[in-house]
């Protein structure tokens, strides 16, 4: 009799603790997620007023004078991202093919895999520093080329890793079937590529999303410019470095433009990521 009472009391204590912990955890989760959503909402609130027609069509005005836009930076960011994708995706995919199709148990494969991990964890500002030493110092000029290469180097390990992972998911029977009817190895790999299409597109889109919001690797490679991007061998205007410079400036109009540019970058990155997710879902 006494024992059952004690057990019941004990159970009540345990249930109270459980309820308390669950409430606290839910509240903490709500707080964390709430703050993050608040950040996005704030960027949207402050950025939206800056996004008028001139923002997308005009060159930046002189400091302190209202008006003008960031059309050159939008164009420059698109150009840098496109150039980086054109270099980074094929090279990264080829390396991924090697890791998955040829180098699964080789020593070169293991070494490359380690390097992919190291490069993936490499702070993007160091990529910028490296490209500065090999492409800016020798040519004595900041350039769009250097910026595009820096972004491509950031994409490389991401693309290589996803390609390897996605190809590894394709059943071996598919490749063996192709090889059995006399197809060469590259045809068999092409078939595996087709099977892994959804995942590969997702990987590429995520890599593009990542580099299009990068600032640090462009600071001392592409730099920035108040003019239209004319040549990739000169400094090229881009949105992210513009945000950095404008935010640090004392001019209210520039700061407003920085918010507008932040909103644009955020929207572009989130849209690309969402797109990547729908492709990933299509695959499964």
């Amino acid at each position, binding site marked *: 009799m006494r024992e059952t009472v004690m057990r019941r009391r004990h159970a009540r204590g*345990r249930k109270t603790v459980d309820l308390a912990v669950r409430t606290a955890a839910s509240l*903490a*989760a709500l707080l*964390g997620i709430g703050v993050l959503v608040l950040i*996005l909402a704030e960027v949207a609130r402050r950025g939206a007023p800056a996004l008028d027609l001139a923002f997308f069509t005009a060159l930046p005005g002189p400091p302190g004078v209202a008006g003008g836009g960031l059309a050159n930076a939008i164009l420059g960011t698109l150009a840098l991202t496109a150039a980086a994708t054109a270099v980074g995706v094929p090279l990264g995919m080829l390396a991924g093919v090697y890791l998955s199709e040829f180098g699964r148990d080789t020593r070169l494969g293991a070494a490359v895999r380690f390097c992919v*991990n190291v490069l993936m*964890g490499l702070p993007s500002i160091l990529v910028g520093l490296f490209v500065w*030493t090999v492409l800016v110092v020798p040519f004595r000029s900041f350039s769009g080329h250097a910026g595009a290469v820096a972004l491509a180097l950031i994409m490389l390990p991401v693309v290589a890793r996803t390609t390897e992972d996605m190809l590894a998911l394709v059943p071996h029977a598919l490749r063996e079937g192709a090889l059995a009817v006399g197809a060469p190895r590259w045809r068999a790999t092409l078939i595996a590529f087709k099977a892994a299409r959804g995942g590969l597109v997702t990987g590429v889109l995520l890599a593009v999303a990542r580099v299009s919001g990068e600032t640090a690797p462009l600071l001392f490679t592409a730099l920035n410019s108040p003019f239209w991007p004319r040549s990739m061998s000169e400094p090229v205007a881009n949105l992210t470095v513009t945000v950095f410079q404008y*935010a640090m400036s004392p001019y209210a109009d520039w700061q407003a433009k920085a918010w507008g540019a932040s909103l644009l970058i955020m929207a572009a990155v989130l849209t690309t990521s969402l797109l990547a997710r729908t492709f990933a879902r299509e695959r499964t």
Partner: protein
Amino acid sequence: MTDRHATTAAPDRRRPRPWGDPLFRGLAAAAAGFFLLLTGAILLELTRGSSLSLAKFGPSFLWSTAWNPVTGDFGAFSSIAGTLVSTAIAMALAVPLSLVIALFLVELAPPAVAKPVGAAIELLAAVPSIIYGMWGLFVFAPLMSDHVQPFLSDHLGFLPLFQGPPMGIGMLTAGIILALMILPFITSVMRDVLRMVPPVVKEAGYGMGSTVWEVTRQVTVRYGARGMAGACLLGLGRAVGETMAVTFVIGNNHRVGTSLFDAGNTIASALANEFAEAADPLYLSALVELGLVLFLITFAIQGLTHVWIRRLERSAGRGL
């Protein structure tokens, strides 16, 4: 009919030696080899670029607190310390919170909530760090100087950590912004780890009459402990080298302060702020050496993560 017969009988004699496959294999191997070359080149170039500074200051660069572009005297101590302190603040805040959020998503929330929120967290992990920097500078820093810092000095002001003028920007603000930035990233990795805990193990706990908290604490967390440590290491690697989220709000000051309210700098923020303006070769060289130090720090973290995950994979049968 004859055609098929011919190809099955002697394919090699009739067709020219296929060149497609060796070429394909060679191309792929070359692309893979490029990664080795790149990693080596980065280490080499950072070392070469810092040779001037290495020769002048030697190992004392690491603990010297000097940073004077005018007299050409440079030391990395304030940047290394700033990197470690801001990262420590970020990890101390982000790890428990992301653990709680991940547990909430996996164990507590109904699927109708967990699914969209989980997807949202993954999306948030993709938000560029400059967005966090902007928010930190214009929204959070004023909040810090008007409310949080005065509150901290009123209640914890007896500690040297919370003394000094509430400027808004500084080490503490940078650490908090950094925490917010890595929060979604660590959370989504932890969520994946927790989801891999087999339901059978948890159900056994519930079957014995355990409460959700008891199962979480004694089964789920223990089972996933190593995987979660891996998630933390990944977050650590991100926080250490993060540039923009920190640069906006840390104040860029090379003086080593005792208070978390003081303006400071990290290796990444020093590079972002000073590199484009540095003209003197020794100044540039010292900045590149800072980069080299950061490279070695992240390399060490990567190595640790690599070893850890390898061990994890090998013992996957015994739990994550």
